[in-house]
């Protein structure tokens, strides 16, 4: 008998647990800061959406071609007078035919100073929590001297770390995604709660079938895709809310105060839709790669690269559902709400593949040590 491949380092495993619990505490603080941001933001008077969709209607009807808000970060010095000499030409953009001309909302803080302060605190706390959580993942990996993705607990923890990481990366790239903060932190808390209470598995080694460098490749990309698809799905959900709010306004009806207050501060439906599309489209090739990598691994481990095992079936269903969504976007008459429902269906498939298939359906993949 050869000695055990690696000795589990109980200490490191313990440290990892502490770090995960600490990150949960910090996420909790971030959650409260976001709540404060939304609360203070509600005291502002926004009303841009309503104005764009109702008041301004008559005024612009006969006007010259609508030109929309200037692109942020595009050219143009902030000149105001019409006759100033431009040092660079200014680009004006116009939304595609058939979409509403609505400016983006000002974000959760609603442009209020207090709200913005709390928002910044929330983002800082989220960053801190992310660093702690990432530390938890790394110490877990060190404690077992392997990739930290051997069971559902480890998978869940990494999943939320990556989702938050992706969100922070988008923020760092100066993308307008702060509206995502509250939802994201809430789900991360949920995910970590489920992971630590129900899915916890003591740190340990892997069954032989998982001993492969494909574990690093296949599982890491799978987690990454899931986390980013999650962000895309959150965008799609908010799009649906915001879109129905806008069409409400368009029909001249007045939505409830709470609904207005929250939805008005979000980006416009068109922006949310685009955001969700771009995210999903960007990850789709990687998801394709994940499945191919899984097939290659299955070919090495089980002697067939595709065998309709439940996990394989649901990866395929998820893949086809996302392909369906991308096609819907390219097909006239399917853009907008219908496409968003498809995106949500696709993400639901992904989630089911992760929780449902692991727990409820048995197959070759079910050694994942629930």
């Amino acid at each position, binding site marked *: 008998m050869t000695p055990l491949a690696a000795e589990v380092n109980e200490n490191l495993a313990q440290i990892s647990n502490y770090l995960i619990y600490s990150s949960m505490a910090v996420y909790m603080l971030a959650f409260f800061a976001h709540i404060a941001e939304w609360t203070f933001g509600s005291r502002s008077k926004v009303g841009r959406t309503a104005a764009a969709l109702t008041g301004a209607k008559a005024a612009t009807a006969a006007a010259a071609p609508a030109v929309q808000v200037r692109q942020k970060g595009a050219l143009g010095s902030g000149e105001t007078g019409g006759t100033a000499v431009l040092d660079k*030409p200014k680009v004006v953009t116009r939304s595609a035919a058939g979409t509403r*001309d609505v400016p983006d909302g000002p974000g959760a803080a609603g442009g209020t100073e207090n709200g913005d302060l709390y928002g910044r605190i929330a983002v800082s706390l989220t960053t801190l929590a992310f660093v702690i959580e990432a530390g938890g993942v790394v110490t877990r990996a060190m404690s077992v001297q392997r990739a930290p993705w051997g069971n559902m607990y480890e998978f869940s923890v990494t999943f939320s770390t990556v989702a938050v990481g992706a969100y922070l990366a988008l923020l760092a790239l100066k993308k307008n995604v702060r509206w995502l903060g509250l939802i994201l932190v809430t789900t991360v808390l949920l995910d970590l709660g489920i992971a630590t209470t129900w899915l916890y598995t003591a740190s340990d080694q892997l069954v032989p079938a998982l001993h492969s460098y494909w574990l690093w490749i296949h599982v890491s990309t799978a987690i990454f895709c899931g986390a980013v698809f999650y962000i895309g799905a959150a965008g799609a959900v908010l799009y649906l809310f915001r879109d129905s709010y806008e069409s409400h306004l368009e029909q001249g009806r007045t939505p409830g105060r709470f609904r207005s207050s929250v939805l008005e501060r979000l980006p416009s439906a068109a922006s949310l839709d*685009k955001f969700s599309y771009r995210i999903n489209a960007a990850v789709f090739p990687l998801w394709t790669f994940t499945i191919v990598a899984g097939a290659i*691994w299955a070919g090495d481990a*089980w002697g067939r690269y595709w065998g309709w095992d439940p996990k394989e079936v649901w990866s395929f269903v998820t893949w086809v559902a996302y392909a369906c969504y991308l096609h819907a976007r390219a097909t006239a008459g*399917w853009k907008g709400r219908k496409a968003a429902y*498809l995106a949500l269906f696709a993400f639901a498939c992904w989630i089911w593949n992760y929780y449902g298939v692991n727990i409820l359906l048995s197959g070759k993949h079910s050694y994942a040590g629930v």
Partner: protein
Amino acid sequence: MSTTDRTSTEASNPSEDSAEAAAGAQLSTAPAEDSGGPVGIGVIGWVRWFWRQLTSMRVALILLFLLSLGSIPGSLVPQNQVDAMKVAQWKKDHSFWVPAAEKLQLFDVYSSVWFSAIYLLLFISLIGCIVPRTWQFVGQLTGRPPGAPRRLDRLPAYATWRTQTAPEEVLAQAKTILGGRRFRTEAGTSAVAAEKGYLREAGNLLFHVALIVMLIAFAWGQLFKSEGGKLVLRGKGFANTLTQYDDFKYGSWFDPDDLSPFSFTLDKFDATYEESGPQKGTARDFKAYVTFSDGAHGAPQKREIQVNKPMEVDGSKVYLLGHGYAPVISVTDPTGKVIYKDAVPMLPFDANLSSSGAVKVPDGYHDKDGKKEQLGFNAMFVPTFAGAGKGTMLSQFPDLKFPVLALSAYHGSLGVDSGLPQNVYQLNTSKMQEFKDPDGQLFKKRLLPGETMELPNGAGTVKFEGIERWATFSITRQPGSGLALGGAIAAIGGLAASLFIQRRRVWVRAVAGEDGVTVVEMAGLGRSESAKLPEELGQLAAALHQQAPTAPDQPVKATVEGERG
């Protein structure tokens, strides 16, 4: 501006709209939506209509959706192809549903008529989609970008300024700048048209073609594949011919001559297990050491086979699937002559390798009266016994820590002479009598290695000599895997090109105004969702602006700037 307003403006301005439509024409090769009914006469009209429907984006979308829904049942109901035992169990548990499920081919979803219909239609649709799109794309490659629409300010991104540079000079500069950024340009009289990002369409076509390649590769593999299992005892060998396999499955076009001639012997088998902790007993590592020879003349080589590391031989792969124990048993007849000695593989039925099996002695036995008989023993083997009186014959650990063999003895006819194939792990006792212990019960005994049991009434002895190991191997051959992999890589590449590259057009117009100053207008049009388009147009405009700077003293503001918000 609201949608309704836009529609009314557009309705009043049909010519402008068609100019805009022309500007965006063929920016993608997607088939046009077509919702009209069949046109033309009779069958041909209908066939044409059907074909147009099948190859439309809408139907492709519906078929894709059906494909994803259609694959779901196969993950909820066990599949013959995956695990026939589970199917049998399911049928037992849900007898009410069995007739309906059989009708719907729910146990063979992925080869069912309806599932095949969906994907065949989808792939016909795909081919019907790719062929015209490819021609169209080739046409676009040799074509020129369409001329500038009359009103550039109606396009999604727009910039304008006035300059003292002459219009011809501006246009020439624009052409150079655009050309320098690898736009394909086409100069008109007062405007330059430019286009870029053809690779997007190429990538998209590549992706869809790659899907077809993958399907063909998969079908090819299914038709020619072969897959067999073999249990090999330590020290014993295997040669790759049809007769050597324990079980063998193959595709419809498989030819036994395709089996590559090789052989190997199992020299040693290693397994390590978790010794403590919550996952005690979980396997950590399996390794089979074999001596392998390729063909009839190959020199023997030492090789290792692990769970994730099959041995590859000339298109076939040898996988290590499972392992277990084989107690070595010897039997003597009443005269004390050894009439049987063999290692008998036992089949594990739990994670700690509690195993069961049967010892069959078909030849050479004569009872005390000299009558020819056969002997049979039901056997249970545990590598780690819980201890006497613990009330269980289940193993506590998969490794050999306290091996115990339990046997119960029968004599009579094994039923092996009937010619019907028999399960080697089960004893058919229908034509056998039990050996009885003094209490008149079935004679059984637990043995430790080296122990011997005496059959009642001096009928002979059975000795538990020792323990061998065995491993099961699966030898598979699936041609077309390389093609499938190539298709998959091409698909990912094509997909990335198709999703990350934007196809876009830029127009630059320069005309002399009434006051002699040149008005420059630039506009961009992307296929969809382009965030980069205004940015890129801005960079182009800035570059052109350096060559044709804004005229000082602009008397009237010439541009519309409906900035709001």
